[in-house]
């Protein structure tokens, strides 16, 4: 019997890749989102996001109801911050119809949008650390702060998450002194929560080991992939619509826009912490001197509101990125075409480039660091 030549088993063993679908029903996909992942052992070889499970065709609904009728639907887009969704829609309509917004309403809009940014970023890093495995503790600290802000929204607009508070040309309810005092208390207590949170997580060795150099998004790919918001700024893209478009009264407020350099999961986490500190600065400035005056432009009719024919695109720096509305009007009371530019949906374009080569555990964190909400992805 001729002895077989010694062969290196690694050459002959053909290992098969493992296709698993981190499926629509999964504890850490932030909603009904599926990723078809091809695994080689633990390493991700390919990753295809599959969306559409929460598709309600909100854009076709809007073509059947009046301009104001789709304002409550915008709360259901990115249900974490209904206030900035409302603002994006109101801004697009005001740009299209040329409506002037009184001074006090602009200040109230900035207060609401920045508070909504605070609670969104707080829960975003809470969920990110929950995906890292910190069993609920950071998430519940973040939710404790978020509750205070949602209670303020309920006191003002009537509902915690589905505020339907903005109107074309202003806001629906004026802030009386009790509400302003409540807002000032929230803003005063927020830095204390941030310091405690940072001490818990920012220098934690396990978080550093898990998040540094993971899911790096190069600057060019971020711009080419139309990535916007904290995800892009963490990779070095100096682009914040509050500074570029200067909508509302943002040009009169001094605040910085933190921009990272490496663009890994840790940068995206820390950029959100720094953005929260900037938002607190903005809120302190606006809450210090709110002018008196009307809260809604007079000439906007509640029923039968018509916009001259034409199309227009208005956008806002939402907590998740650039949230834009492209509206086409044919002069009637109903929009002819109502398109939403969803930041979470477009930020997913580069998810695969960030995840390939990393482990399964990293793919989950990278998805968490993009901070998507499926109501906005699927519309």
């Amino acid at each position: 019997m001729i002895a077989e030549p010694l062969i290196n088993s690694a050459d002959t063993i053909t290992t098969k890749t493992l296709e698993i679908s981190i499926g629509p029903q999964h504890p850490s996909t932030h909603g009904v989102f599926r990723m078809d992942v091809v695994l080689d052992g633990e390493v991700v070889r390919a990753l295809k996001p599959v969306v559409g499970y929460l598709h309600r065709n909100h854009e076709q609904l809007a073509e059947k109801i009046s301009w104001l009728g789709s304002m409550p639907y915008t709360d259901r887009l990115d249900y974490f911050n209904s206030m900035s969704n409302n603002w994006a829609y109101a801004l697009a309509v005001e740009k299209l119809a040329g409506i002037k917004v009184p001074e006090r309403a602009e200040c109230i809009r900035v207060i609401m949008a920045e508070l909504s940014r605070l609670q969104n970023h707080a829960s975003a890093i809470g969920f990110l650390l929950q995906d890292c495995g910190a069993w609920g503790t950071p998430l519940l600290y973040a939710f404790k702060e978020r509750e205070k802000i949602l209670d303020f929204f309920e006191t003002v607009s009537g509902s915690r998450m589905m505020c339907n508070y903005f109107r074309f040309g202003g806001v629906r309810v004026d802030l009386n002194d009790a509400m302003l005092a409540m807002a000032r208390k929230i803003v005063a207590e927020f830095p204390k929560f941030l310091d405690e949170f940072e001490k818990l997580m920012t220098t934690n060795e396990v978080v550093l080991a898990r998040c540094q150099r993971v899911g790096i998004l190069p600057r060019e790919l971020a711009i080419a992939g139309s990535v916007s918001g904290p995800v892009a700024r963490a990779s070095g893209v100096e682009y914040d619509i509050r500074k570029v478009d200067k909508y509302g009264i943002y040009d009169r407020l001094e605040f910085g826009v933190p921009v990272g350099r490496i663009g890994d999961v840790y940068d995206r986490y820390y950029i959100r912490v720094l953005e929260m500190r900037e938002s607190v600065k903005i809120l302190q400035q606006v809450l210090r001197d709110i002018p008196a005056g009307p809260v809604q432009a007079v000439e906007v009719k509640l029923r039968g509101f018509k916009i001259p024919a034409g199309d227009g695109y208005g956008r806002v720096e939402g907590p998740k990125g650039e949230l834009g509305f492209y509206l086409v009007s044919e002069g009637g009371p109903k929009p002819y075409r109502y398109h939403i530019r969803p930041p979470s949906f477009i930020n997913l374009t580069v998810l695969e480039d960030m995840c390939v080569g990393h482990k399964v555990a990293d793919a989950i964190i990278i998805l968490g660091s993009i901070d998507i909400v499926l109501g906005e992805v699927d519309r």
Partner: protein
Amino acid sequence: MIPTSEQLCAAVPGVVIEIVPSTLAAAQPAMLVDREHLVAVARYLKNEPSCQFEFCSCVTGVDYLAKGFIEVVYHLYSVALKHGPVILKVRAPRELDQCHVPSLTPVWRGCEFQEREVFDLYGVKFDGHPDLRRILMWNEFTDHPMRKDYVPPADYEWEPTPHDEVLKRAKADGGIMPPSALATEVKK
């Protein structure tokens, strides 16, 4: 600075550019480009040092049923020079087999998912798109729901407060009529 149509005509030979005005308040005129030269115009806008539109913010499909075409609208911004939207429009006939538009995903990677969505909801086929599949609807779905002439399937579930066509359809094919809808209603 935002290029004028003459500058574009000079840069890209043989392109037909038409300015489509918006409302006077919005003041966002768009450039309607013909299909053949769209990719060339896009590359010029992206690589031209004075424009540098390397951020394609929004891709939208609009179905103009009356005028008989579907329009795809691109909103471009420049991150480096921070200047405003340049809006490219391109039109394609509504019939499904001729509804072709050159894809701009090779120019801007960000259009990939958005163009797939326009294909899924409007049926506009993007030539040159790396992975043109349905993104929002399930794969076995054949129709394109956002078209103006799309008729949703007549699945009348229980609806205690029916209105206009749901009410008509319930009366027509004898669907379950809630008691209140049976209440005799004399037209005013």
